[in-house]
């Protein structure tokens, strides 16, 4: 029987009731009395010098409250970058300023120049049209290779070139060189990891109000991590101390990484509300989102694999150009380095690995973490490369992978990380069973009978989640700690509020987190509520990204609950006149071991708040505990994915016929939610593989800035997915044994899709080594023509 409560139960989500009835409270649903509306005038050229701004006519327009320009931000901090990467020469990365409103120059289409505040949004928009703005257009830097050539235009005039850093990492040069010198076979692949736009369905919104009487600012914003925004905006941009700044992220309509970062617009409305002493609201349109939300991926890579005569992987080296866009977004610098290079071992025991990454400034929207963040880029190049090697060597791609699997744990890779647990053989066994490898030949024959080509693509993946520990990431350049916090507040009658630093924007924390606490205390989940997303209610928190919520914040919650149990046992011991060491807690009852004495959970909690009969000299009244949890290591979810496609040889159109995912997430708290996370990740991976691409023209104009041009996966583009997470090897270092499941689908699926397309084409006699994503009908058709 499946469990119906506690850890492991597929409980229905409690948050669904409000979302299904229109009662969710998203940031745009918040309106503050007396609010004004903000509209940003943004650059429509990619690169230019602002020669004049005349706002006088616009200021005279009806309803205009005030117009702000870059001048208003002179001397005010720019948006900070949260991770300092060190160049291979030991120099810090180049970190040009990222102003809230453009200072003298615009550096990408969408760069905000002026902000108009008016009584209505229409008035603000109309007034923006009346601003007289002169921009002297400069040559745009768009292509990364061209950006690095000497003589290229400079995105930042104060720098000598467009290189942010040149980062090198991994094994000794000599070891890597030797592996390639000794190789019986070397497989080389050059590829592009296409630029994507995260596109959570809720565009970003920021509403700020200011209480002059006590000098307090409140910002409602669409964020995955309100405390991080409070810290970055308060300390680095606006100079508002934390106790005067409240950041609230209410219901947030999806994030996928793009709502981690601190954005100019939220800093602006907070600043402006103080200046005009009135609330200010900004709601992004979707068009604006395309040119102001941080983009994802955008790597150009050359990767090489050295194999010995027995097809063992003996060396790997990879060179990547990573697009930073025009400015360093909050965590942009860490994505192609520590979140990418450290995963290059994949699931394989390759002994010598070298990673080189050059990060490049261009006149495009900043690029930062998007679901997977560096790990999809690592997985895609590695798993495409292994497939290519198998084809070149004429060996079965699954067999080649199995032969090189890491099989004993813990395993220290040549790229700095130590995998604590895993069972790659088990997930591959499971995957082969799910996708029914023996039945593929018959399915291919069926497709061929219809005139279609059929291919099967397989890949493995590993990711590092719950990025940690703080002392290590600090050495690597992180300017933040990566712990999390939770407060368990037990009320007098035994009900509980758990204040958590993780933010839920689709992940179902409000349902899954109480399952953990309920399990530990043996009480019903309905007695427990989760509070998140408000810096005034929660002690602290680093938020939700990198599949960290349960592994890091959930662990903090476990630690706080353990403290609660310890204190409650003391109280129970006093109530039952027993020794604390003899007290047991089971099913919400405290008992004295070996006796029939017991007190209920509610009796103990009531005693804590009505301490008439209470050990006041030994412990404080009340029952509330906070814990901060800093993990000892990353967690390492891993798995194997398979995809079967049909290709229409006349049009090149690819359809996904079957998809299977065998994941190892360690222990699972709510399998229904976990499976939903995998489904969504897979769809985004299929989107990257077949449909999505963010396109700039040579002048830096953004050409794919609406759902007419940016192909989001729709219901008809994807199949039902077969997912399994039964091959679990629990994480060894967190109290729940959980690993994280939010990004796996997006990491594991793109290579499976592309490998499947190439299998279909090559089986049909087309000698095609690689097709870049998105594998569009046009690209497939062209590849088939030779």
């Amino acid at each position: 029987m499946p469990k119906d409560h506690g850890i492991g139960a597929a409980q229905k989500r409690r948050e669904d009731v409000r979302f299904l009835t229109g009662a969710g409270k998203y940031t745009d649903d918040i309106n503050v009395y007396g609010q004004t509306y903000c509209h940003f005038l943004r650059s429509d050229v990619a690169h230019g010098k602002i020669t004049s701004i005349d706002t006088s006519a616009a200021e005279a327009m009806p309803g205009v409250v005030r117009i702000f320009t870059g001048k208003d931000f002179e001397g005010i901090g720019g948006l900070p970058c949260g991770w300092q990467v060190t160049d291979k020469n030991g120099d810090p990365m180049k970190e040009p300023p990222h102003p809230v409103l453009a200072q003298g120059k615009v550096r990408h289409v969408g760069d905000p120049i002026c902000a108009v505040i008016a009584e209505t949004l229409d008035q603000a928009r109309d007034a923006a049209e009346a601003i007289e703005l002169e921009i002297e257009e400069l040559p745009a830097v768009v292509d990364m290779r061209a950006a690095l050539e000497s003589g290229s235009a400079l995105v930042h005039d104060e720098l000598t070139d467009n290189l942010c850093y040149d980062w090198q990492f991994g094994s000794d040069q000599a070891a890597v060189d030797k592996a390639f010198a000794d190789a019986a076979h070397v497989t080389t692949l050059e590829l592009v990891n296409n630029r994507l736009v995260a596109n959570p369905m809720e565009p970003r919104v920021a509403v700020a109000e200011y209480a002059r009487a006590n000098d307090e600012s409140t910002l409602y914003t669409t964020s995955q991590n309100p405390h991080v925004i409070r810290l970055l905006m308060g300390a680095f941009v606006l100079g508002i101390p934390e106790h005067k700044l409240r950041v609230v992220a209410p219901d947030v309509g999806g994030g996928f990484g793009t709502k981690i970062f601190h954005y100019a617009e939220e800093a602006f409305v907070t600043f402006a509300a103080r200046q005009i002493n009135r609330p200010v609201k900004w709601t992004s349109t979707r068009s604006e989102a395309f040119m102001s939300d941080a983009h994802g991926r955008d790597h150009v890579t050359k990767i090489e694999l050295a194999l010995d005569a027995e097809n063992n992987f003996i060396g790997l080296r990879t060179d990547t150009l990573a697009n930073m866009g025009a400015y360093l977004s909050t965590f942009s610098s860490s994505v192609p380095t520590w979140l990418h290079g450290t995963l290059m071992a994949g699931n394989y025991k390759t002994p010598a690995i070298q990673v080189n990454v050059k990060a490049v400034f261009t006149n495009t929207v900043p690029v930062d973490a998007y679901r997977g963040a560096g790990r999809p880029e690592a997985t895609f190049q590695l798993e495409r490369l292994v497939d290519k090697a198998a084809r070149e060597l004429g060996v079965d791609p699954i067999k080649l992978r199995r032969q090189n699997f890491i099989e004993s744990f813990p395993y220290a890779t040549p790229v700095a990380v130590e995998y604590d647990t895993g069972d790659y053989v088990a997930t591959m066994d499971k995957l082969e069973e799910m996708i029914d490898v023996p039945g593929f030949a018959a399915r291919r024959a069926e497709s061929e009978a219809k005139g279609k080509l059929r291919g099967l693509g397989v890949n493995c993946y590993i990711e590092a989640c719950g990025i940690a520990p703080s002392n290590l990431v600090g050495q690597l350049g992180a300017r933040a700690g990566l712990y999390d916090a939770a407060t368990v507040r037990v009320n007098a009658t035994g009900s509980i509020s758990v204040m958590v630093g993780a933010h839920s924007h689709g992940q179902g924390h409000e349902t899954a987190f109480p399952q953990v606490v309920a399990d530990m205390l043996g009480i019903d989940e309905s007695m427990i509520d989760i509070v998140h997303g408000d810096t005034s209610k929660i002690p602290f928190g680093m938020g939700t990204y990198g599949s960290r919520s349960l592994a890091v914040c959930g662990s903090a919650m476990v630690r706080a609950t353990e403290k609660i149990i310890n204190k409650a046992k003391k109280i129970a011991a006093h109530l039952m006149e027993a020794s604390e060491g003899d007290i047991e807690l089971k099913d919400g009852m405290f008992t004295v071991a070996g006796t029939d004495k017991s007190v209920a959970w509610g009796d103990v909690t009531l005693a804590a708040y009505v301490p008439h009969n209470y050990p006041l000299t030994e412990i404080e009244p009340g029952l509330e505990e906070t814990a901060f949890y800093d993990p000892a290591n990353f967690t390492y979810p891993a798995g194997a994915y398979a995809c079967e496609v049909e290709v229409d040889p006349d049009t090149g159109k690819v359809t996904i016929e079957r998809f299977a995912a065998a994941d190892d997430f360690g222990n699972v708290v709510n399998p229904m939610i976990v499976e939903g996370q995998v489904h969504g990740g897979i769809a985004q991976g299929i989107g990257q593989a077949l449909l999505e691409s963010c396109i700039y023209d040579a002048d830096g104009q953004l050409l794919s800035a609406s759902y007419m041009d940016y192909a989001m996966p729709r219901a008809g583009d994807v199949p039902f997915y077969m997912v399994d997470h039964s091959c679990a090897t629990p994480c060894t270092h967190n109290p729940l044994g959980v690993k994280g499941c939010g990004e796996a689908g997006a990491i594991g699926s793109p290579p499976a899709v592309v490998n499947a397309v190439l299998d279909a084409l090559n089986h049909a006699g087309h000698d095609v080594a690689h097709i870049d994503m998105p594998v569009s009908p046009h690209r497939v058709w062209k590849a088939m023509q030779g």
Partner: protein
Amino acid sequence: MTKVTMTVNGKAVSKEVRGNMLMTEFLRDELHLTGTHVGCDTSQCGACNIHVNGETVKGCTIFAAECDGAEVGTIEGQANADGSLNVIQQAFQDHHGLQCGFCTPGMVMSAATLLKENPKPTEAEIRHYLEGNICRCTGYHNIVKAIMAASGQDVSTIAAE
């Protein structure tokens, strides 16, 4: 300004509106029915789907003035009279057909008209019908499953290996 009168979720409303006011603005700003969401500005995403005289309409693509005299339904009016979730809403919860909840109102509104037109749609028919509803969270798996379940179909063997 134009005076419009319509029935929204069974209640008569009458308001003075600008001629260019969209139904999304009318519902969200004038009636404070914020369950209808705005996810794009090119009539592509379907987060703003509402019912106008029994048909699914994108609220961002119709003026309030055009709805003068109409019967309008929004997500806020979909639950049963006692406040419990209706069959479609319940199926979405039972089958985890939503995550962040932002596209969900539009999905539920589309599903309602689909099942009215086609009480037992196939998987392919559902996927085709949802062409105008974008979801970024669920990968559509559980949305399609929920709609099949709401139509009384057995979904226990979906994507079984």
